[in-house]
């Protein structure tokens, strides 16, 4: 089976029941998407499906009909996405494990709500867990990426 990942048709194995998370990581070799809980409770595995954030641990590859975007698809160390740049400017990550999911959720939020309020950010981002407690800096980085300046 092949699906569109980051603009390229990508081999993801032959088991339609496999969660997209494991197909991306183990078969396509895209390891930026992280495993956190397996039950859509933490957001670490967030990817975009046609621009909408989905939990790849609970999305079966057989059900993927649209285009998938992972952290590798929105920017690179040489060419950062504006959200990634804001994350760097605000020095957001600590352990960094949840941040691929946080960044993709923020990309989707800003796509839908270019000027989010604190309440918008809380609502949209509270499905993404961070055990290091980087929330205040995530919020500041989202505002920075929205052009609201350093919070």
């Amino acid at each position, binding site marked *: 089976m092949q699906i569109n990942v980051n603009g390229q048709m990508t081999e993801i*194995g032959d*088991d339609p029941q*496999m*969660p997209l998370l*494991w197909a991306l*990581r*183990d*078969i396509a*070799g895209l*390891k*930026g*998407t*992280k*495993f*956190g*809980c*397996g*039950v859509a*409770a*933490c957001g*670490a595995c967030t990817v975009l499906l046609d621009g909408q954030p989905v939990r790849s641990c609970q999305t079966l590859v057989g059900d993927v009909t649209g285009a998938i975007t*992972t*952290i*590798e698809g929105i*920017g*690179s*160390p040489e060419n*950062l996405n504006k959200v*990634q740049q804001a*994350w*760097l400017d605000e*020095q*957001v*990550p*600590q*352990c*960094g*494990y*949840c*941040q*691929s999911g946080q*960044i993709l959720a923020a990309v989707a939020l800003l796509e839908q709500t270019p000027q989010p309020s604190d309440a918008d*950010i*809380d*609502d949209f*981002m*509270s*499905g*993404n*867990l*961070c*055990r*290091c*407690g*980087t*929330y*205040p*800096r*995530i*919020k500041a980085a989202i505002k920075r990426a929205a052009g609201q300046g350093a919070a």
Partner: protein
Amino acid sequence: MGIAKIARRTFLIGAAAIAGGIAVGTYFVRKPWDNPLEKDLAQGEATFNPFIKIASDETITVIVPRAEMGQGVQTTLAAFVAEELDVPLGKLTIEHGPGSFAYFNSAMLEDGGPFPFFDESFIAETMRSASGPLSKMLGLQVTGGSSSTRDAFEKMRQAGAAARQMLIAAAAARWNVNAQSLSTADGFVVDAASGNKASYGSLAAEAGKLPAPGSLVLKDKAEWKILGKSQPRTDLLAKVTGTAQFGIDVDLPDMLSGTVRMSPRFGAKAKSMNDAEALKIKGVLKVVPINAPAGSGFGVIAQNTWAAFQGAEALVIEWEDAAYPASSQAQTDALRGQLSKPADFTLRNDGDVTVAFADAPREEVLEAEYSVPFLAHACMEPMNATARWKDGVLDIWAPNQGPAILQMVAAPLVGVEAADVRVHTTFLGGGFGRRAEADFPTYAVEMAKVADGIPVKVVWTREEDMRHDAYRPAAVAKMKARVRKGEGPVAVDIAVAAPSVIASVLKRTFPSISPMGPDKTLTEGSHDQPLTIANYRVAGHKTDLGIPVGFWRSVGNSYNGFFHECFLDEIATASGVDPLEMRLKLMAQYPAATGALKKVAEMSGWGRDPGPGRGLGIAHTLSFGAWVAEVAQVHVSPEGLRIENIWCAIEIGQAMDPGIVKAQTMSGIVFGLSSALGQEITFANGEVEQSNFTDFDAMRMSQCPRIEVEILETFHKMGGAGEPGTPPSIPAVANAIFKATGKRLRSMPFGKEVDFA
């Protein structure tokens, strides 16, 4: 291995009795460790000491031998070298480096004795200086105890200075001038008189052959260009682009995947196991029995992680019963029962508590029971490790906090010397103490042993991770005080019952070491606080509940901070005095503590009326060398109780990187608040009842308060940053809830008694 044998006989981590091994080990202590970098140098590379390599192409590699688990240790420790080597931090290539005895952590062990941080008596200082050499003997390359920066402060600056002096000496020889006339800047040695200039890379080969300098001159603090200033973290570009390699991301040629299904009852084994259905699942290759000191169960080797997960789930296993109190109620009863027995140790005993209570009128006596549950670490990255056993060499790739421990634990599994186990430390997706355990790499080794030389990456499910932790201990405390109206405490008597972390860790990690003497982690946060109370006793009651317990961010301080600081609040209320004023009086001999309290009072506007439905609470704890005062503001809102603000003043002596210190302190606060909201690990039928973030959640963005942190730098000793933010956050919130609602919370999590938004 001779060194380990000597250490095992004489060494008691965290216990009072460490004397005896010191003289025996003198020879080993004086003999410097080999530089582990020498054997793996690339073409054109020279090494100067275990921390620095410089290549002819100008690549300067710094070994930061501590686990980067989010605390920014790679940045700050590399900055020590950059400062003294005179190169910009951004020019350095940072590696974790190999597991080696050269990277022992003496600062952590110095904190391990039973003496409070402020005790600078002769005996306390002698014990501290003796434990440095002891940790070198054991080669404890551990990341923990908020100790990395304190441990590296001298060592890594000296490493940088030594390399710089050797580069200058090489240039002096090349140009035939006096070394004194040369200077360095941005990776070059410069001769101002002749205008000669040579890059470090061009000098490295010659300089690396020179002997290490006999004496070193370190920069004066006033000359620092990098230290003491916030630096951009060196690991963040990788972490915002998904390119940082965590343990779970290890990828090797031909690698297989695996997972484990361990006994849900600790110490219990399988009575029967049927793997017929598991082996029918496509991609499942092999089911491997695992029997280790840390646990018994089965490993499943498969072609991909998902197949392994399905295979593990399909195993039909009947497990033995629990040989310990099987329910949370039975555990609490056991803890309470232990409190009625004589104490195992009393690490604080000022005045005479018995006499002080003897003639106390009833209205002057305050009594309370406090309790906390077991807690899981719940790192975002589930436990995992990759192992390969091929051609007599064992390789372990693991996000771990103790590579030297892994070497010692893994070596006997395959019958090699500890030094021959190659441990590769990746980034850690959270650690919090969990990744100092050896269970997850041990299981990977057991599976690699039957994989014919093929590497196996073993990833646990979240459910396995949640149900097989080394938990923060459950604890019960009996608190008693005699109070005087308008003044405060005349006598305080605290008895804490909990499982011993040290005994539990040793039992499953180094079974040959017997845990003797007091375990100071059991009462830390109660017995070692900077208060002067005429009659003041803190006793510990070790209670083995059969549940593995371990180092959870701030360890014993995480619960003693809650007990001690909430009970002080009760004493203030009963005495009719302000809790801040009372603390200032009781801590008057410790300006570091009163300084932090006054600062946080100013930040929070202590004393103001926060308005209807709101309350302010205050707490102070001294842990890991940092004096931390916090004020919480809570609001009883229509949606539920909200923690609106946390103000924090942290006295740390010297902050090497203020940005990172603040981030760490905030992180510690959120970690503590997460436990206050709703976290608990409970037991039924000997098994953990929780399984995932659905029933063991952590603070979410919508619940996170505004947090302000101010750093104070007046104390003469440097403190840690990773853990000290946690202990006062919990009592500050409980005390604020009391102010806002009148409800006194004495057991955790608070979410069982109040509804949080």
